[in-house]
């Protein structure tokens, strides 16, 4: 069977398939100039993504399939990949292979060749292969498989021109790859089975040889899929063939695997020539330190500390600058402009405090996230992230968590939403659910402004220690819940674990920027929209009826009604504290903003008598330069032992004074613990529903809210018993 390559429209759909971490996404980015997310740890591309480009008068649609090791749909990635090839049927498959791992890669290649789709092989990371002193007989390889082969270097774009040309050439050619043949008796049964199923409804449109092999193997996933689509049980097909073969091959699975391996080894030996003196491998040398029994863990903790410290040290000056620019400069002048138009005070306040305030809040979050995304991208793309998972598996295993769960949880410290999506890298559904359930206990970046305000108000001298204790509290609670869930709701053994550790690579600026920009844009679009809308909603809650005192507004009245429920935590006697919790559910960074509003903190943002727009605009530009200098100095200063000096310059702000009046140090700590353990925000709720359904979300919501309430009560009550106030 052949597939027509080019539709009459001149469009070609090309699927890029290959093992995880072979550089498919980078290759597509280099070809099309798009910014698809790339990473150097397996499982970054969990959904297929596409890029479009024009070449030689044709429209090329490049589909970036998730990285897979096979087409047996055990993981979500494999399922996405296989279903796409079977159902959507691209015109062409570009199998991206890492030449240094030919034998491993050929396992997937064999299966792709059975899909009966014209194919091109791109030997990617060719520079790495050559630098190791190996040689590759490309012609022999291409002839053996009847597939055109080219060499590429994804990150630099080398070879992409030739690949594009090959794609266009292939568009006029419908020849299929040579099938990998099995030993005679197996081939005979496959042929018989193909004849048996040919023309059957369930086999229409499917690659016949592939389907016959799946039936012969009694592949449960293929049988289930056919049953789902055609409402037909086909499990009896292949039974008698298997029985006949059992006389020669008592274990057919093993025989097939052995034969595949033999063919792969034979081909690899035929085309690859190893150097006489293999060069020392930089990855092995680095791993001797970073995965060493004694130095591995300290190195990991050190890297983690530097990442988080630099994130905050670099971003804080920019956060302050954006805050001043939007909430000071822009809000003030917009307010003045609107007043000049004689608009009602209600409208002026809505625009100034609701809309500009909301947008400002979103923007102040951007520098911290960008810094965090930069460091996470560095860890991912350098290859260290997978090592961290290996190191952590020793510990996480004891708590019922998978080593791979470490990565999503680490991402969760930045923002729980990508953390929830990152659980897709875990193969078992149970592991995914447990990891996602404890995700909310990972203190996300949006909770930091709460800690910054309260620690500056009450624990100025031990700010870093208090913040660290909060992060630790979250981790301890997460571990406790992981153990409980593994022993109760998800009672099962922790499965065996297998993960590829990619070679260390220097990340390119292009790859880093693509990663940062994609995530930041997603934040501004998704979380940003929610926050901005929530901020307007919040404005309505705190300002309506317009002109009323804060305690008589909608939010004030409802908070006063609910406040007694928070007496055991020590802050129930002040409705202002309770009022900040509900908006915090919309977005945690709104807690501080709400406290500011309900405590009637007047910001000094009225124009000075001699205010001059141009002068102030210049001041903002100078402010940006100063922020950059401060951030630069902070990078150097980071080596000094002064961790997490956050916002201490705001110690005398009116908000700080308001907070000091409302809370005691103990109730402030209880308030922070409550916010720490509460489900982060509506965006997390959305992500959880999408991934695990509403019922599981309800369960997670219950355990997080319950834990937050109980833990903060315990903190306050035990604290009082110990004599704290």
């Amino acid at each position, binding site marked *: 069977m052949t597939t027509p390559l080019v539709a009459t429209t001149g469009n070609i759909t090309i699927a890029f398939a290959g093992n995880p971490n072979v550089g498919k996404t980078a290759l597509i980015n280099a070809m099309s100039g798009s910014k698809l997310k790339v990473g150097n740890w397996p499982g970054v591309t969990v959904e297929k993504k596409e890029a479009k480009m024009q070449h030689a008068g044709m429209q090329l649609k490049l589909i970036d399939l998730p990285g897979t*090791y*096979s087409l*047996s749909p*055990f993981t979500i990635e494999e399922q996405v990949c296989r279903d796409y090839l079977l159902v959507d049927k691209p015109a062409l498959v570009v199998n991206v292979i*890492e030449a*240094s*791992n*030919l*034998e*491993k890669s050929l*396992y*997937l290649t064999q299966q792709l060749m059975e899909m009966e789709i014209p194919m091109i092989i791109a030997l990617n990371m060719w520079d790495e292969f050559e630098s*190791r002193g*190996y040689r590759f007989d490309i012609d022999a390889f291409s002839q053996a498989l009847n597939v055109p082969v080219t060499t590429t270097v994804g990150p630099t774009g080398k070879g992409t021109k030739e690949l594009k040309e090959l794609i266009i050439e292939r568009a006029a050619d419908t020849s299929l790859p040579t099938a990998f043949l099995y030993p005679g008796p197996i081939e005979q049964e496959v042929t018989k089975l193909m004849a048996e199923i040919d023309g059957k409804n369930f086999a229409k449109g499917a690659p016949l040889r592939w389907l016959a092999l799946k039936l012969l193997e009694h592949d449960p996933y293929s049988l289930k899929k056919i049953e789902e689509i055609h409402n037909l049980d086909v499990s009896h097909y292949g039974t008698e063939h298997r029985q006949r073969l059992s006389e020669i091959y008592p274990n057919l*699975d*093993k025989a097939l*695997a*052995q034969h*595949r*391996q*033999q063919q792969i*080894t034979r081909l690899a030996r035929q085309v*690859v020539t*190893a150097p006489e003196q*293999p060069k020392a*491998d930089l*990855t*092995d040398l680095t*791993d001797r330190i970073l*995965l060493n029994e004694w130095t591995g863990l300290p190195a990991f903790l050190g890297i983690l500390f530097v990442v988080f410290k630099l994130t905050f040290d670099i971003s804080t000056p920019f956060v302050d600058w954006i805050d001043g620019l939007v909430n000071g400069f822009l809000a003030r002048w917009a307010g003045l402009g609107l007043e000049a138009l004689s608009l009602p005070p209600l409208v002026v306040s809505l625009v100034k405090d609701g809309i500009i305030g909301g947008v400002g809040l979103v923007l102040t979050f951007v520098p911290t996230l960008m810094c965090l995304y930069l460091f996470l991208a560095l860890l991912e793309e350098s290859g260290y992230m*997978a090592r961290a*998972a*290996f190191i952590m*598996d*020793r510990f996480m*295993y004891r708590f019922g968590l998978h*080593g791979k769960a470490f990565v999503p949880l680490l991402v969760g410290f930045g923002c729980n939403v990508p953390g929830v999506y990152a659980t897709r890298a875990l*193969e078992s559904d149970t592991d995914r659910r447990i990891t996602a359930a404890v995700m909310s206990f990972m203190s996300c970046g949006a909770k930091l402004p709460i800690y910054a305000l309260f620690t500056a108000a009450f624990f100025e001298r031990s700010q870093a220690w208090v913040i660290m204790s909060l992060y630790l509290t979250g981790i301890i609670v997460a571990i406790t819940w992981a153990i409980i869930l593994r022993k109760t709701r998800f009672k099962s*053994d*922790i*499965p*065996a*674990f*297998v*993960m*590829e*550790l*990619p*070679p260390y690579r220097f990340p390119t600026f292009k790859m880093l920027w693509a990663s940062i920009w994609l995530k930041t844009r997603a934040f501004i679009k998704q979380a940003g929209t929610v926050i901005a809308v929530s901020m307007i909603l919040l404005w309505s809650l705190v300002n309506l009826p317009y002109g009323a005192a804060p305690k008589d507004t909608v939010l004030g009245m409802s908070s006063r009604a609910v406040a007694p429920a928070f007496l055991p935590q020590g802050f129930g006697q002040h409705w202002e504290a309770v009022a900040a919790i509900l908006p915090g559910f919309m977005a945690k960074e709104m807690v501080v903003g709400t406290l500011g509003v309900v405590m009637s903190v007047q910001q000094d943002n009225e124009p000075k008598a001699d205010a001059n727009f141009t002068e102030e605009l210049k001041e903002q530009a100078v402010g940006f330069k100063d922020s950059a200098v401060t951030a630069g100095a902070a990078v150097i200063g980071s080596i000094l032992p002064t961790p997490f000096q956050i916002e201490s310059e705001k110690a005398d702000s009116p908000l700080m004074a308001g907070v000091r009046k409302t809370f005691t140090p103990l109730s402030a700590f209880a308030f922070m613990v409550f916010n720490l353990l509460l489900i982060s925000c509506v965006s997390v709720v959305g992500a959880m529903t999408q991934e695990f359904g509403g019922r599981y979300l309800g369960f997670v919501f219950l355990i997080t809210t319950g834990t937050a309430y109980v833990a903060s009560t315990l903190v306050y009550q035990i604290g009082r018993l110990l004599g704290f106030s």
Partner: protein
Amino acid sequence: MLADTSLLNQTIGLGEPKTIDCFPAGAEVEIHAVSGDRQLCKRMESMGLRPGKQVKILKNRGRGILLKTENTRLALRLSPAFVLEAVYPRP
């Protein structure tokens, strides 16, 4: 493309398949059998751990093993549901 370790293997005794955690770090062995949970076996096979494949044991922490095959490093955590047997390659 692993180095020939047949002489070393001869001197320390070979031939009997053993579970992979029985081999010390630094040993270069050949996968003999992948058995246990079918799904896991297929997964291991797809990641390169197939009978006949030569691997080098980089780290052996009992339950946690780090292997190298070709230019791929694979981190494994063994479980009773999955058995990976290996043997020193024949000279």
